[in-house]
């Protein structure tokens, strides 16, 4: 049942321990949230999982395989993809090309010796791209240059790219940061729909408590790199340590 497991994961930058002995699990099919005040180590934790950072100690296991020391592209190939906090897209390329590149990587692996083979012949790539663009509602814009999309659409494209890698586990780094209330509501709907349609497991980092309590099945709370609570939204809400970290001990 456990899809992702970290065991004693620690990341130290000089004297600063950004992630301190974090052990937690993500079960297949659940929406798992990571919350915590600024500087709690949420992004560092995500970066240790994706391979963008090498952990100082501890291990990451995905689907029973040790992935601790894999580089980011290898991690993606095992089935973990990440949508970035800022829309990390290819601005000069069309929406379709943006999604196709991820679909291509999912289709043929991290490297192929196929520089004389026509891209138009990869029909599975085009199909996946179509499917993901329609999942996020960008299929009508497939010929638009990605850089000219409105901000909310860029973020949806970002999610489509992450989806086109055909992940089992989707890491979402603050998917609603910088969005208007309307866009935020749309994105939350989108995440819920994707979860259902694609049977995804989602690990989401988010600041907006309202969103977290609405979509998360279980919540991991970090403070200064350490786990201070881990449980259902109700459990977390009632945790004194969480209230202390967030509100300085004031009763809710």
């Amino acid at each position: 049942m456990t899809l992702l497991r970290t065991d004693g994961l620690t990341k130290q930058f000089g004297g600063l321990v950004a992630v301190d002995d974090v052990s937690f699990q993500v079960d297949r099919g659940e929406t798992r949230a990571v919350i915590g005040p600024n500087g709690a180590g949420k992004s560092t934790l995500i970066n240790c999982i994706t391979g963008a950072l090498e952990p100082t100690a501890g291990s990451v296991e995905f689907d029973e395989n040790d992935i601790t020391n894999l580089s980011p592209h290898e991690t993606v190939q095992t089935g973990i993809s990440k949508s970035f906090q800022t829309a990390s897209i290819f601005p000069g390329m069309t929406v379709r090309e943006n999604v196709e590149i991820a679909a291509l990587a999912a289709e043929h692996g991290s490297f192929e010796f196929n520089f004389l083979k026509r891209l138009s012949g990869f029909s599975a790539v085009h199909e996946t791209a179509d499917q993901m663009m329609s999942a996020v509602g960008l299929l009508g814009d497939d010929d638009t240059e990605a850089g000219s999309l409105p901000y909310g659409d860029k973020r949806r494209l970002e999610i489509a790219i992450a989806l086109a890698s055909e992940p089992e586990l989707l890491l979402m780094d603050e998917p609603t940061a910088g969005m208007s209330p309307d866009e935020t509501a749309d994105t939350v709907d989108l995440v819920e729909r994707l979860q259902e349609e694609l049977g995804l497991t989602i690990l989401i980092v988010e600041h907006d408590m309202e969103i977290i309590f609405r979509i998360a099945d279980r919540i991991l709370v970090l403070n200064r790199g350490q786990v201070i609570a881990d449980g259902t939204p109700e459990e977390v809400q009632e945790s004194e340590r969480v209230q202390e970290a967030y509100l300085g001990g004031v009763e809710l």
Partner: protein
Amino acid sequence: MTDREVATDGGAVAESGEPASASGGSALSRLRERDDFVVVASAAALIVFPFLLVDVLGIVGDVIGLSIGGYTGLPSLVLIYGIIVIGFNLLLGYTGLLSFGHAAFFGSAAYSAALFSQVVPSPLLMVVVGTLVATLLAWPIGFVSIRRSGVYFAVLTLTFGQALYFYALGPGSWLTNGDNGFSNIEADGLFLGALPFDAPLTPLPFLDSYTVMYGFAAVSMLVAVWVGNRIINSPYGLIFEALGENEERVEFVGLNVFRYKLMAFVISAVFAGVGGALFVIHEQYIHPTTGLYWIQSGDFVIMTVLGGTGGLVGPVFGAFVFEYVANVVSGVSLPAIGSIGSLWRFVLGAVFVTIVWVFPRGIYGAGEDLVAMLTDRSGGEGGGDTAAADGGERE
């Protein structure tokens, strides 16, 4: 609602046949993707090129009293540099890697082709050997340089290039003949010497700028265009472009960034190798300064940016302008100023600054904008219709 109308409309047009969509932007790009179209269009351009450059400009020059016509060897030289910068642009324009050391591959191919000619004077084998050496050299240089990006990458490639230059000039002079240059290069003509390179291709006396050398360079150019076109329409084309835009994201969609950058580097070195070998066949002389010096690497950069990095063949226009200024404009003698001579780099600099300032996308980009403007005016909404039709079809 309007989208739907346009889409159905577009679909009907597409069914009724090609001509109606011929003016659309996406129809043009689909045409460009087709190998046979690209090769045929390039072949047509290559057929008229020496005539325009040597004969027509020569006549115009006679009329206005300035020698602005090209000489017989110039068209071949333009094509040789054109082949190099097509490859160089896959690295600079698509992948976004600025190498200041591609003279290493150009020069090493030129020298190895020259050396090989002492054993077997076959031009085809000289090209094969030169390209092979350049390719083999590109793996280690690329392997080390690509681990760094931006300025560090540029300086590393520059360092490797300069190392080879000083080697060829000094310690390696037993091989390269050092500062005296490597002269007695014995390239037979084509078909075991049956067709000498300076022989005319046609019996027609007024077409004497069409030499066997030009034919050889033109066929090489067609192969280069065909291969280049295949590459940019392969997964590599998409990945190279993506690398140029957002390398981190490429890593995070699960692609091995290092290997793809290395491939871009090696592929561009292959093109530089072909060009280097052709260069030595054409010039029958190679010197460390023309072959390996860092200014040669810089010239590839200037040609590529001047021509425009946005398309496959854009840089070839840059190679043309560069070589035209270097070889023809330098020989022009102006009434008040006198002979331009070695001041040609000032002229080139002025041209470069003007082009980059006025048309940041280079000569090719300016041409594209012009075509787009003209088709927009005459075709009106034609372009938009076909674009929408594409979306409709795929749904």
